[in-house]
């Protein structure tokens, strides 16, 4: 299950970045290598056969690059607009992950995105993370679930 989750997360992110932002140069690296002091953290709750969340850690530079590409405008700082646009991207990726998992009869729904701070203390049945290095910056994703 952990491997399936990892693959679904990486594939969904690849597809969304490619279709929405024309970003194709993406490599995945060990999540422990990810380091960032200034980031936009978004959590998408998951309910259904599994309960938990997907945490997206977008460094500020990555967040701004994403919104600049989508809008064709120049955003210099993270504000309500940028956070909302980045949250919607996280929402879209998460929806695609659940669609991929539904092929294996895993039935879950996602909750609206919320800003969060990564919380490493909680224990989960299944937890996997990936660190994606892309042409528009780094992204770190974690999916952590308990069986319902």
């Amino acid at each position: 299950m952990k491997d399936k989750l990892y693959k679904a997360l990486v594939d969904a992110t690849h597809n969304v970045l490619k279709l929405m932002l024309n970003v194709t140069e993406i490599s995945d690296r060990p999540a422990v290598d990810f380091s960032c002091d200034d980031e936009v953290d978004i959590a998408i709750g998951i309910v259904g056969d599994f309960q938990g969340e997907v945490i997206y850690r977008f460094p500020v530079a990555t967040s701004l690059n994403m919104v600049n590409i989508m809008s064709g405008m120049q955003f210099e700082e993270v504000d309500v607009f940028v956070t909302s646009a980045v949250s919607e991207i996280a929402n879209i990726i998460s929806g695609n992950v659940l669609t991929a998992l539904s092929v294996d009869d895993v039935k879950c729904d996602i909750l609206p995105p919320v800003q969060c701070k990564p919380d490493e203390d909680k224990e989960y049945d299944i937890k996997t993370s990936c660190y994606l290095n892309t042409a528009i910056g780094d992204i770190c994703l974690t999916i952590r679930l308990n069986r319902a």
Partner: protein
Amino acid sequence: MLWKDQYELGVPSIDEQHKELFRRVESFLQALRSAGSWEEKAPRLNETLEFMKGYVVEHFRDEEEYQLSINYPGYEHHKQLHNGMVDYVLEVSEQYERSGNNEDLMQQFGGRLLAWLINHVAAEDQRIADYARKKG
């Protein structure tokens, strides 16, 4: 420019509506992000929001009719996506009015609308075009 040729579906009537939608959203975003006080920008934003409330419904209806005409198997799912966005636009519009034109609400709406629209046209709508091409 917000519109990209890669978004074309190959269905002229729908492509024209998409281009108009992108033009309107682009104009909305430029007004939203322009310099100046919120009081100065609000009338133009309100006007665009009112237009979109009508145009989005009209476009979604036409696109759904096209899907039915080609027996698109993803029709129900796609219609749900449309309904979700229409509900969101109406909800934000009401909240915005009730709040006395709160800027943060509109900035939040703009960011989500931008990402939703690009994903919807670049990914979801392309599935309709792929199906139509395969069907021949």
